[in-house]
Structures are given as C-alpha cells and as structure tokens.
C-alpha cells in the first residue's frame, strides 16, 4: 500500500512538472492526448467494465464540444454555463443511446450506436447552427480567476486536474458495488440478475457514464482548440478510440489511459506517415484481439501466470478450510408457518410445441429439504428456471410465501429472497472469489446509484461493510485462502462451494440448488450434505435437483420425481424408491425390481 502511494505521489509530481520540459507544440500534443485519454476512460467504462458495445462515444464527444461551441458563439453564453449545459446534453444523448441497449446487445447494439454516431456527424455537417462543414471557430477562452487559459501550458493544468478527478471517480466506480455489478453483468448477465443486479438499468447507467466522460472531453477540447469541425468526430476517430481501448486493455481503466496516451503520441510521431500509422494500429488491433484480448493492461497478469506454469491455485498454501455451521434459527421461526415457502400450481411450460413441464404442482413447506429427481430431460432444470424467473410459464402459478410471483424478473426474485445455483456453474469468471461474494451481498436497489454522484462517502462505507460481510461469509465456507483467486483457476469442488456461498450471500429464504453434487467425489458430497443441513437449520428452505441418489436419499426429507415434465411420484425417500413407476422411469423396467432383492431395512438408507 505504501508502495502504491509513493508511486502515485511520484507520478503526480512528474505530471505537474512535465510542461516545463516541453515546447509549445509538444504541450499541445499532450493536451490533446489527455482529452483522448478521458474519452478512452468513458469508453472503457461502457465496454470493458459493463460489456456494452459503444460505438457512439465519439458522438458524446461531439455533443459536448458542439454544445459548448454553439452556446458560446451563437447564444452568447459564458463558457462555464455553456459547459454545464453541454454535460447535460451529453448525458441525455447517453440516455438516448442507452435505450436500444435495453433491447439489443452485441452486434445489433454495435450497429445502432455506430448509426447514431453517423447520424450525429451527418447533422453537424449540415446544420447551419453547427457551422456545417466549416465548423465553429472563435470559441471563447474559458475564464478562470484571471488565469490565461489561452496558454496551452496553463490549460494543461486544467486538463490534468479534470482528468485526475475523472479517472479517480472512474476507478472509484469500478472498485465499489456499482462497478462490481456491472462487471458481473458483463461476465454473466443471467447469473448477475439471479444475484440481484438489475441489468437493464445498469446498462443505461453504463451509457450515461460513458456519455458524461465524453461530454467532459468535448468541453475540454472546445476550450483548448477553440474550433470544432466535423472531421474530429468522424467514424475514423471512433475506430481510433476503439483501437486505443482495445490495445490498452478495455477491462482496466488505467490500461485505457495508457492505450490512449500511447497511441496519441505514436500517431503524432508518425504524423507524416498517417496512413502507415493507421495500417499499423489496425493490424495491432487484430493481433491484440486474437492473441492478447486483455490488451497491454493484461500483460502483467499473463506473465505472472506463465511464470507460475499454470500451477493449480490450490497449491501447498491454499487449502479449503472446514465449513463453519450457521447458527441455527431461533425456535420461534422453526415453528412451521401455515403458508408454504414455495407453492407451484399446475405449472406448464411449452417451448414451441415441446411440452417441458406438464401441469406440475408441488408444495414445499418452510424448513424442508426437498429433492427433485428424474431422468434426463424430465424438466427439472426447466422447473427451476421458471421458479427463478428465467423462463415465463405458459400456464400455472408460482407462489412464494403465499404471494404470486409468476413472471417476476430474476433480480426482483432475488430481492424477494430466492437464490439459486446453476447446473453448469455460473461464477463470474473475471471477478475474484471475494468479488463474486461481494456482488451477491449487495442488496441495495439500483436507484441508490444517486449516491455515487452526491454522497460518495456513503458508498465507501457501504463497500467497507460489504467487505466485512464477505470476509465472514468466506470464512464460514472455508474459502478464506481462495478469496483473491479467479474462480476458474480453482478445483471444481471448490467452485461448487463458492457458488453455494454466493447464493447464501443474499440471505435467501428459498435456496434452489441445481445438481450441486455433480462432479464431486465422495468426501466432497459428504461435506455438501453437511452444508445443506446447516443451511436449512439456519432457517432457509432448500430445494435441490440431484442425480446422486445416495445424497438425495439421505439428505432430503421428501422427494418429488419428475418424468417427461410431469410429477410421477412424491413422498419420503423410502416410499419413492419402492414405487414401480419411479424405477421404470429410471431403469426402463420395473421388472428389474422383481428380479432383485426386496427392499430391506438396510438398503432403505
């Protein structure tokens, strides 16, 4: 930590004295580079952190610059009031661009944002108020307490401060709950929703953030060059910006800055060979994408991994600690309430003619451990997906504690107390284990984002509290040695435990476990059973899908058997195991039972 503060201080001093070593032209280059760095940070926030393709960043830049220019030259506003309006205009544009992001993603979003950028260029090239192809010149110098900002040397300091604040804010966002939620959404929107992230709103937020940075960059640009023209806001520059962010490493804001500064300087150095420069950075983008997707910023990590020779993280020092049981729920709450925690009434689900669920009804009382079993393709995971909000039922209802929740979105169900794990493990691969837990622990509604703008201290305190809780949770599940690892590097059994810990982070009342024992060995299965029992004892109702019949028989008090989308049996393990219909569903023939030994008391488990 001290090392970091020292390095930062050194960097700050270096940045402060830089202009003294440079001539006027060089300072101009640096000034422009900082503007692009600001743009790159905004783009990085949208693309790298939130995973939203944003090819309209150049348009946000243009809105900021042009609004400032127009209001100062045509409407006679002072520079700073114009700048204020420009920021608002840019954010509104961000909102507008974010709207399509609610409906479409990936390449559709790419083309829509690109189209809007082109539309913007088209407008400024033609509109009289924007000066047409000649642009707007004679933008006034921003007044600042008598400091002559016409001097590029002095303007540098204005930019430096603005940039430092902006970068600091960006890093603040990334390292706090909002940034983590966005990163989780980027890694796996489904799982993010399941742990309470309101994905659509987060997408909008990403765009608004990007647009604010773009607008700020535009204002600074207008004040620096004091001339705005369409060429600066062209698609070619958008792609240049994209190249900066990709080469620098879009997932790291510092990487984006390095990419922006680096490419700006190289472009300047190769100004006489502009086309060669373009060829070069186009090739570097392709190479980066194929060989080094994490960009320059990702190189230290890759070097580290290579030096470690891909050793499994669970080396000598890192071992799984024993699970610490939850405190059992107080007596009062173990008295079964009349209303079941989960009630499924006549649930049906069709996929284009295929009936995945056929009139399924079941009731899970509070404090139960219920098993859902059945052969492959019997609809078990579909059932979970409907209950957890991923699918909409075609018929029937799902009730949580007596309230109808059918059709509720996953993030809302998460807030209502439903948590789940996934058959194929959906941990956030680019977040550490600690961060996976932090995301799930964060129960604040998305609207509390306002605190980022106005009450950062509150955010900071909240983040601290979350970290404390995450440490506790990790310790309880024996994961304290793994908290800084990316989950993908860990053994499978540990990943499964992390997913359960993450599910429990949201303090659910209903926990759905989808094949939690898949891929686990005997000892791990035993530990799993212990964990599940403890979870139940703490007051959570557990429903699990499993194929490991030994686990199901010993763990679950009641079992529901599904086959071909319908319930074919329900009862205690012993009852179910002896039902011919069940045996037939699994083995294909109940006659196998007759040829075998009758169920004795010992084989009843």
């Amino acid at each position: 930590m001290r090392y970091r503060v020292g390095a930062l201080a050194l960097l700050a001093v270096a940045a402060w004295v830089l202009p003294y070593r440079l001539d006027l032209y060089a300072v101009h280059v640096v000034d422009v580079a900082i503007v692009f760095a600001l743009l790159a940070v905004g783009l990085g926030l949208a693309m790298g952190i939130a995973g939203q393709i944003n090819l309209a960043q150049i348009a946000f830049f243009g809105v900021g610059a042009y609004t400032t220019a127009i209001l100062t030259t045509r409407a006679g506003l002072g520079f700073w009031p114009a700048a204020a309006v420009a920021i608002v205009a840019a954010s509104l544009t961000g909102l507008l661009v974010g709207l399509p992001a609610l409906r479409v993603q990936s390449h559709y979003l790419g083309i829509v944002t690109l189209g809007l950028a082109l539309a913007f260029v088209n407008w400024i090239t033609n509109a009289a108020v924007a000066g047409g192809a000649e642009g707007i010149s004679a933008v006034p110098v921003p007044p600042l307490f008598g400091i002559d900002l016409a001097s590029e040397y002095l303007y540098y300091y204005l930019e430096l401060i603005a940039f430092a604040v902006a970068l600091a804010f960006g890093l603040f966002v990334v390292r706090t709950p909002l940034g983590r939620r966005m990163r989780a959404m980027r890694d796996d929107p489904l799982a993010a929703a399941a742990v309470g992230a309101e994905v659509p709103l987060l997408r909008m937020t990403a765009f608004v953030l990007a647009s604010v940075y773009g607008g700020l960059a535009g204002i600074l640009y207008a004040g620096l060059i004091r001339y705005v023209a369409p060429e600066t806001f062209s698609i070619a520059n958008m792609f240049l910006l994209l190249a900066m962010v990709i080469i620098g490493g879009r997932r790291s804001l510092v990487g984006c800055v390095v990419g922006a500064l680096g490419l700006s300087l190289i472009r300047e150095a190769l100004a006489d060979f502009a086309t060669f420069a373009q060829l070069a950075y186009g090739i570097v983008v392709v190479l980066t994408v194929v060989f080094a997707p994490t960009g320059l910023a990702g190189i230290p990590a890759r070097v580290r991994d290579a030096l470690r020779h891909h050793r499994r993280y669970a080396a000598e020092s890192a071992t799984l600690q024993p699970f610490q049981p939850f405190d059992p729920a107080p007596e009062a709450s173990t008295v079964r309430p009349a209303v079941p925690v989960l009630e499924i009434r006549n649930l049906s689900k069709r996929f284009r003619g295929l009936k995945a669920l056929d009139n399924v009804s079941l009731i899970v009382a509070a404090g139960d451990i219920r098993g859902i079993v059945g052969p492959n393709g019997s609809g078990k995971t579909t059932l979970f997906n409907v209950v957890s909000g991923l699918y909409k039922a075609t018929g029937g209802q799902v009730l949580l504690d007596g309230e109808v929740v059918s059709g509720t979105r996953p993030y809302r169900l998460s807030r209502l107390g439903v948590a789940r794990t996934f058959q194929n493990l959906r941990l956030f691969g680019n977040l550490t284990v600690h961060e996976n837990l932090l995301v799930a622990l964060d129960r604040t509604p998305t609207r509390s984002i306002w605190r980022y703008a106005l009450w950062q201290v509150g955010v900071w305190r909240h983040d601290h509290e979350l970290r404390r809780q995450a440490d506790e949770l990790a310790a309880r599940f024996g994961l304290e040695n793994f908290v800084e690892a990316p989950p993908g590097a860990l053994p499978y059994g540990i990943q499964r435990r992390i997913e359960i810990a993450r599910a429990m982070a949201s303090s659910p009342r209903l926990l759905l476990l989808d094949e939690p024992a898949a891929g686990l060995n005997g000892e791990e299965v035993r530990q799993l059973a212990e964990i599940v029992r403890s979870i139940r004892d703490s007051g959570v109702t557990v429903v699990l899908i499993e194929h490991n019949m030994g686990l199901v028989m010993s763990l679950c008090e009641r079992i529901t058997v599904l086959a071909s989308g319908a319930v074919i049996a329900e009862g205690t393990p012993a009852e179910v195991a002896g039902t011919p219909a069940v045996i037939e569903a699994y083995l294909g023939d109940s006659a196998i039972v007759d040829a075998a030994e009758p169920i004795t008391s010992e084989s009843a488990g």
Partner: protein
Amino acid sequence: MQVFFQTLVGGLSLGAIYALVAMGFSLVYRTMGLVNFAHADVVTIGAYVASTFYLSARLPFVLAMAVAIVVTGCIGVVIERVLRPLENKDFDLMLIGTIGFGIVLQALAIMVWGATGHAVPSPIRTVPLEVFGVHIRTYDLVVLAVAGAAMLALVQFLQRTKRGAAMQAVAMDHEAATAVGIHVGRSNAIGFSIGAGLAALAGGLAGPLLYVSPTMGASLGIKGFAAAILGGFGSIPGAIIGGLAIGVLDAFAAGRFQGYSELVTFLVFTAIIMIRPTGVFGEKTVNRA
C-alpha cells in the same frame, strides 16, 4: 408526379446496390452468426479494384468485376482464417477484430490508390430510356438485373447445392455438422468469401453511380447493414426488400431533407429496430448472442 417516379427510379437502382451489400452481410450472419464490420471496407476495395482494372488496364467491365470478386474473396478467406480462434467463443471480440480489419483495409486502399478517389464513367453508353417522361438509365436497369440475378444465384446455392446446405447446417448446429463430416472452419471461410465477393459486386457496380473514394464503403456499408436488418437479418430475399426500401427512403429523404438524409434514414432504422428487432421477414435461423 414525374419527380416522384424519377426519385423512385434513382432510389431503386441505388437500393439494388444496398441490397447486394445487405446480402453479403446477411450471408455471413446467417452462416456464422457474425456481423462483419469490415464489410464496408471490402466494398471499397471491390470498387477500387474493379474501377482500376476497368480504367487503367482497360479490361472489359465484366472482367474487371470478376477480378475484383476474386480479390475480395481472398480477403474474406484471410479474415476468417485469422479470426477463426475466436469463432463461437467471444462474439464481441470477433466483432472488434473485424473492425480492426476494416481499419487495415481502408489504410491499404489509401496507400494503394491515394486519398482522393476518382469518378468512373458508366460502362453503358446508350441513351437513357424514356418511360412516361421518366429517365431511366440503362445502367440502372443493369444494376437491378445483376442484383436480382445475384439473389437468385445465392438462394439457389443455399437451397440446392451441397455446400450451401452445409453452410446452413453449420449455422444451426456445429457439432452435428462436424459429425456428418463438414469442416466448420472451411465452411465459414467459404461463406465469408462469398459475402466478400458480393461486397465487391456492390462496390464495382456502385463505381459509375457514386464517386469511388476510400470512404464510400462507409456510407454504403451502413445503409447495406440497415437494409439487412430491416429485411430480417439472415434472410436473403429480405436483404433485397430491405435494400430497395432503404434506397427509396434515402432517395426521398435526400430530396426532402437534402444533407440530412443519412440522419433521417438512421432514425427511421433505429425506430424500426427497437420495435421489431427481427426485421420484416423476422428470420431467426441463427440463434446466437
């Protein structure tokens, strides 16, 4: 009334060009689930190669087009091969990869042919037809005919040939396609190069209609893309309909809004995409991303 029809005719012929661009996009999307952001620049290269061979080498126009198609086909193969490791793994990165290729292609175009561009005279020097007072250039009819022929040929290829069926199969199910003996990467490469060839066709034909410059691909590309989406991404007939629609819309917008035509086209397009992302023909043969 006459102005209306004149605008319509102009819009249709340009629309045929957009349709060709759209078909290239749709084909690549339909077979690989990928939007190729380098497509527009391939159009530019096609236009340059065709016009260069036509003007400087004095090749017959048709032959010059053929050369352009071969050249861009090779470019398509290169792009697919380089980006193959990302196929089916990270769509966003692949998209950015194609953007990178686009940047490279545009730089190459400027390096080889200079930044200013040139005009291409129409290869057909007959007197324009006069139908009810509306001038119809023979070249416009040729463009429409070529676009129509290309569409028929493409549809025939996809429906009737083994390779075409294989390309569709790959889009639907990689694993099953591999199991029956289809090499997924090679199939994708063919799809990509056909798409690129269509881009060259569009660019080459557009030469006499527009001004050949390094940025011509951008405008054509964007409108072609919009056309592809409007018609239903992945649908070849949809690409034609979408192309003609955008062409006509563009022509009328240019008449009404002059320079703002692109803006208008874009807003209309965005609105439609928001309401109905699957476009007019609403095909969703490729279920990706």
